[in-house]
């Protein structure tokens, strides 16, 4: 199928335009370097052509791994006979940043005989400041058509399709820009002059940004704002999603009480109530939390605040061998380690990228969230202090999150100081994007997709594990005595490993299954307690744990164990792929496992000492 390439500098709005033209939903964020993979989709207006969304690069002269991938892809694409045209997206409010790249693209396309169209994006911003860009004159100057568009408002989208169609009918044309042999230095000079001549003048565009920066980057107010925002983020995970979680729990309970008595066969009835509603239901309750977390992180990214947070964090992170740019991958790691690991590609310094990889699996990812929520709800009282401002459970969540992050930092701090390696290091340069009002719909959609992905991906594993656990626990005595079931025997085999933490065999089995994915822990426990309770009314898992005489020290030990251990098959796989080193992934898995166990043991004994 004929292809059209969409390329442009980071944060120029490619993904937003791509989504608009194709109707797909790629992640959009106000931070340079968000898209790291090539996306393909059919254009809505021209169903017989495919549009290809490329990761942003500042120049075709790559200096980071991320850019190299993009540049090589681009050069290869130009050789591809299926590629008919190239769309080069530039940010009309920041010409000087995009024009050099544009000229490079025009030159390379000319060499390969592919027509280029320049799309000057964000004209809505120019309009709102009473500015304009003379696209006619700029087009003349670079001998290339320039279309004014806005990916946000949709202005110019129809013209793009019309223009592409007209170009296709014209067929191949001789090059016009005469840049064939122009060296990069010349292009750089020309771009600079063009930007001066045609670029928007004056301060209006940066005035708001500067004013907001003087608050958010101020040494006093900026620090305060940073902690307030992070605290809100963590409270929101608990407080804002609580009503939705309760609704899911009540809803599932009601459905279970309706459905279960209708099932005739005794075994099928037990299966539905224990495995389906007990196991899978226990895990579904946490979906609202994942939704809220993804949404709030998206809000921060799209508003432009994340880049400021990266700046604020740079100096402290450097103490631990990292860079401010590690902040985004690490915070994404709070949603899920996998996007975090992908996001680390945007770190230009190979050494710091490696260290960031090590920190990410210790970030409190959303798969830990169900486990944390369950254990905190079981062990921490639900009261509030300071007139409802601070909830104890929210505070506990904040602490365990903080603990995970601290571990990550300590690990990289120690490794960066003690290990010699051959990885090169590069200094810190970060473009600060303008503050923007976040686009709510794309963010909601992204949160929805993430939750759906979580349910479908983890759901499959959880479904399988729950079934196996249920069968093992239910037979051979039809759920009358869990202790003498097959699962009970298996549990006693692994029990000695976890006995030092005060955990009985039921928890041992749950931990064992959680190595597939952490959230399986909740499903497994749900099934085990479901069989044990042997009644047809659903009792929330929290209450069953509370009545299972688990010592608070064991609860804390479990929290610590889950905070550190790398119990996620997918993360290990992606890690070894992205870092290109299976040895690194294996070492991290074993290392974090040992660390997790020792730390849990220490906490258990400490709790016993305190009383």
């Amino acid at each position, binding site marked *: 199928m004929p292809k059209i390439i969409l390329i442009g500098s980071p944060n120029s709005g490619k993904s937003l335009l791509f989504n608009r033209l194709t109707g797909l939903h790629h992640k959009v964020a106000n931070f340079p370097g968000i898209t790291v993979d090539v996306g393909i989709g059919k254009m809505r207006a021209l169903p017989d052509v495919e549009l290809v969304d490329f990761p942003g690069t*500042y120049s075709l*002269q790559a200096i980071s791994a991320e850019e190299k991938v993009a540049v090589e892809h681009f050069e290869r694409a130009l050789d591809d006979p299926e590629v008919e045209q190239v769309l080069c997206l530039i940010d009309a409010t920041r010409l000087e940043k995009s024009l050099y790249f544009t000229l490079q693209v025009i030159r390379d396309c000319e060499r390969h005989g592919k027509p280029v169209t320049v799309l000057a994006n964000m004209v809505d911003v120019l309009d709102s400041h009473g500015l304009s860009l003379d696209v006619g004159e700029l087009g003349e100057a670079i001998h290339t058509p320039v279309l004014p568009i806005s990916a946000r408002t949709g202005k110019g989208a129809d013209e793009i399709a019309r223009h592409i169609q007209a170009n296709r009918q014209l067929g191949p044309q001789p090059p016009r820009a005469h840049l064939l042999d122009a060296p990069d230095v010349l292009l750089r000079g020309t771009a600079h002059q063009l930007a001066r001549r045609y670029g928007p003048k004056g301060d209006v565009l*940066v005035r708001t940004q500067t004013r907001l920066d003087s608050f958010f980057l*101020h040494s006093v107010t900026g620090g305060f704002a940073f902690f307030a925002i992070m605290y809100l983020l963590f409270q929101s995970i608990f407080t804002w999603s609580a009503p939705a979680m309760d609704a899911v729990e009540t809803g599932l309970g009601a459905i279970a009480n309706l459905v279960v008595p209708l099932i005739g066969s005794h075994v099928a009835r037990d299966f539905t109530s224990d495995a389906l509603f007990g196991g899978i239901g226990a895990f579904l309750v946490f979906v609202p939390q994942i939704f809220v977390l993804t949404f709030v992180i998206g809000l921060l990214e799209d508003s432009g605040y994340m880049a400021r947070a990266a*700046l604020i964090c740079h100096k402290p992170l450097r103490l631990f061998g990292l860079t401010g740019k590690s902040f985004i991958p690490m915070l994404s790691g709070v949603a899920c380690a996998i996007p975090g690991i992908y996001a680390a590609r945007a770190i230009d310094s190979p050494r710091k990228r490696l260290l960031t990889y090590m920190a990410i699996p210790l970030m409190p990812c959303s798969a830990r969230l169900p486990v944390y929520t369950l254990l905190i709800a079981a062990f921490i009282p639900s009261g509030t202090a300071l007139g409802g401002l601070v909830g104890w459970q929210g505070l506990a969540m904040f602490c365990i999150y903080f603990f995970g992050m601290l571990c990550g930092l300590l690990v990289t701090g120690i490794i960066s100081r003690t290990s010699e390696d051959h990885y090169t290091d590069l*200094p810190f*340069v*970060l473009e600060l994007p303008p503050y923007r009002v976040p686009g709510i719909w794309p963010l909601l959609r992204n949160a929805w997709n993430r939750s759906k992905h979580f349910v479908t991906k983890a759901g499959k594993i959880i479904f399988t594990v729950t079934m196996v656990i249920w069968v093992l626990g239910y037979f051979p005595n039809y759920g009358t005595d869990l202790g003498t079931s097959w699962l009970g025997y298996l549990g006693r085999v692994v029990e000695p490993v976890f006995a030092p933490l005060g955990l009985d065999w039921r928890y041992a089995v749950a931990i064992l299954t959680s190595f597939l994915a952490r959230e399986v822990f909740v499903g497994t426990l749900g099934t085990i307690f479901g069989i044990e309770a042997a009644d047809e009314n659903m009792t929330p898992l929290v209450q069953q744990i509370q009545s299972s005489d688990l010592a608070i020290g064991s609860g804390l030990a479990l929290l610590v164990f889950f905070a550190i251990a790398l119990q996620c098959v997918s993360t290990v796989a992606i890690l070894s792929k992205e870092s290109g080193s299976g040895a690194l992934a294996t070492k991290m898995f074993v290392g974090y496992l040992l660390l997790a166990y020792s730390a849990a043991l220490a906490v258990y004994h400490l709790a016993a000492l305190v009383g």
Partner: protein
Amino acid sequence: MNISLWTLKAGERCEILGYDQMLPDNYRTRMMEFGFHPGETVTCLQSVAFGAPKVYRVSNTIFSLDEEVADHIQVRVLAADA
């Protein structure tokens, strides 16, 4: 007076004179691609406390650079409203 970009105070403007040898080549190129050309005017918008990266403006784009880069860019301070 020639100083490094890093020593510029918040609110001051300067003209870029050049780069010193300490900065790796690829980074010099990238800085120029960002718009830090010799002859260009740069304003220091903010110098954040505790040695955090400082915030600079070149035409309509705002960058944050840390000492490792900014210290290798030589500049000449311009009069307040030249």
